[in-house]
């Protein structure tokens, strides 16, 4: 009890400091631009960015772009997870296949995704699917490696115990191997989600008609630094909110951990 109260006041202090650090940075930025130390043409200024954001919110243009980016990220995350988990599971259960494909998996994972983006634009067009594909290539490997490791790492004693208690192969998979892999998969949700958004935004940045990446790219094309920073701000805020949600989800899913 004592420790939980202590950590509660502690997290309160952390939040206060976080706000203080942010406020200080913004104030310094604004002041330096106002004093002429920094040129607003290159770095914009916080008040302009805030004004731009409120225009976007008021006109409603923000929501469409945001929805597109989130949709692509979510589709990418889902498809990447489905592919990565099922292949990771299959590889872990058949060592021969795993050994044959090992160098190919490593080669594919080493390809920089920016190189793939133009190809995907060519194959899947300017719409959301080229971005989803890019997100998938990022999410897939995180999920694949974690699933593979999770299944391979399943505790031998747990497996023996469950088998002694009468489990069939299928029950073994269901009661031990899948939960064991899920532990690893849930722990990598943050990374996967971040990667999914990176994939979506990079895809939009290189060629799209909608989405936050598109907004940033447009602003950069006209040297509109305020627009670039406003787009980055939205992205940052969304990531913070989403990862707070994922943290809560992860805590709940892994609630059995001490």
């Amino acid at each position: 009890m004592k420790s939980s109260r202590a950590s509660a006041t502690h997290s309160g202090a952390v939040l206060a400091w976080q706000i203080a650090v942010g406020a200080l940075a913004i104030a310094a930025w604004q002041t330096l631009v106002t004093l002429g130390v920094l040129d607003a043409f290159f770095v914009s200024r916080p008040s302009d960015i805030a004004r731009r954001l409120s225009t976007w919110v008021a006109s409603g243009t923000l929501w469409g772009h945001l929805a597109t980016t989130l949709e692509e990220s979510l589709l990418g995350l889902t498809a990447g997870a489905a592919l990565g988990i099922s292949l990771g599971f299959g590889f872990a259960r058949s060592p021969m296949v795993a050994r044959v494909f090992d160098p190919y998996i490593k080669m594919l994972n080493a390809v920089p995704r920016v190189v793939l983006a133009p190809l995907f634009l060519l194959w899947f067009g300017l719409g959301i699917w080229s971005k989803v594909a890019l997100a998938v290539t990022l999410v897939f490997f995180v999920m694949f490696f974690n699933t593979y490791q999770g299944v391979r790492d399943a505790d031998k004693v747990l497996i023996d115990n469950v088998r002694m208690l009468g489990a069939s192969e299928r029950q073994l998979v269901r009661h031990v191997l899948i939960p064991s892999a899920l532990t690893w998969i849930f722990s990598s949700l943050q990374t996967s989600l971040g990667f999914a958004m990176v994939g979506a935004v990079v895809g939009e940045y290189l060629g799209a008609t909608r989405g936050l990446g598109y907004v940033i790219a447009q602003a950069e094309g006209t040297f509109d630094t305020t627009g670039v920073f406003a787009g980055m701000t939205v992205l940052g805020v969304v990531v913070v909110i989403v990862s707070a949600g994922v943290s809560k989800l992860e805590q709940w899913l892994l609630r059995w951990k001490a």
Partner: protein
Amino acid sequence: MTALELESVSRQFVTPDGGSYRALDNVSLAIPAGAFVAIVGPSGCGKSTLLNIAAGLVAPSSGSVRVDGDALSGLNRRATYMFQQDALLPWKNVRENVALGLVLAGVAIADANARANEWLARVGLSAFAAHYPSQLSGGMRKRVTMAQNWILDRGMLLMDEPFSALDVHTRQRMETELLNLWEAADVAARRAPRKTVVFVTHDLEEAIALADEVVVLSAGPASHVVARHPVALDRPRDLFELRTSAAFIDLYRLLWAVLRDEVIKSQRDA
């Protein structure tokens, strides 16, 4: 009737450097149904291998294993196994862990849970049904494991140093609870026969305190049975008093004389 019979069982393992290691050499052992037999020996003497062979988790390199007279192939479905390490599923709560064996056997969840609740009451953990293993003490986890094993009501219980990780007082308490469960079997209304228990330990005191018979294995490699001795102490036993009784001490002296030589041998080689 003989519950477990090992006949000339040997087991070799391939070592990482490509050689071979003979863990067990020509072990023959017959354990009568309903008996509590303790197997003691120095560390690394193949006690766990012997138990794993009885469980069907490891196949003997030569020799045969019979359970209730039938040749054992694959896993021993007439036994449950209490491991030295924690073997509860960390992602299932206490009730789900206890009910696991029944669920695996296809018992409806509601029935399985009801019977798990009875068992949790018997081991005094009703209040912890919804806790996860990580939230329990070592002693509580052992009691959950006992309930998980006992709920299946199989005739044989194989135990591999199940209490060795516990502190000395918790350990005595667990030993008492184990004997209570085991001795209660023919007192209870069901009048079911007692389980056959094969209890592996390196602790001679624990072996004598619990068992009807103590089997001493030689130091490895190529462990074999060097002595078997009945433990003629009355039941029910009071484990808190037993260890200072004259009969206990005499038995201890007698068996330690055999085990001591094996321990010295094992330490010389190590």
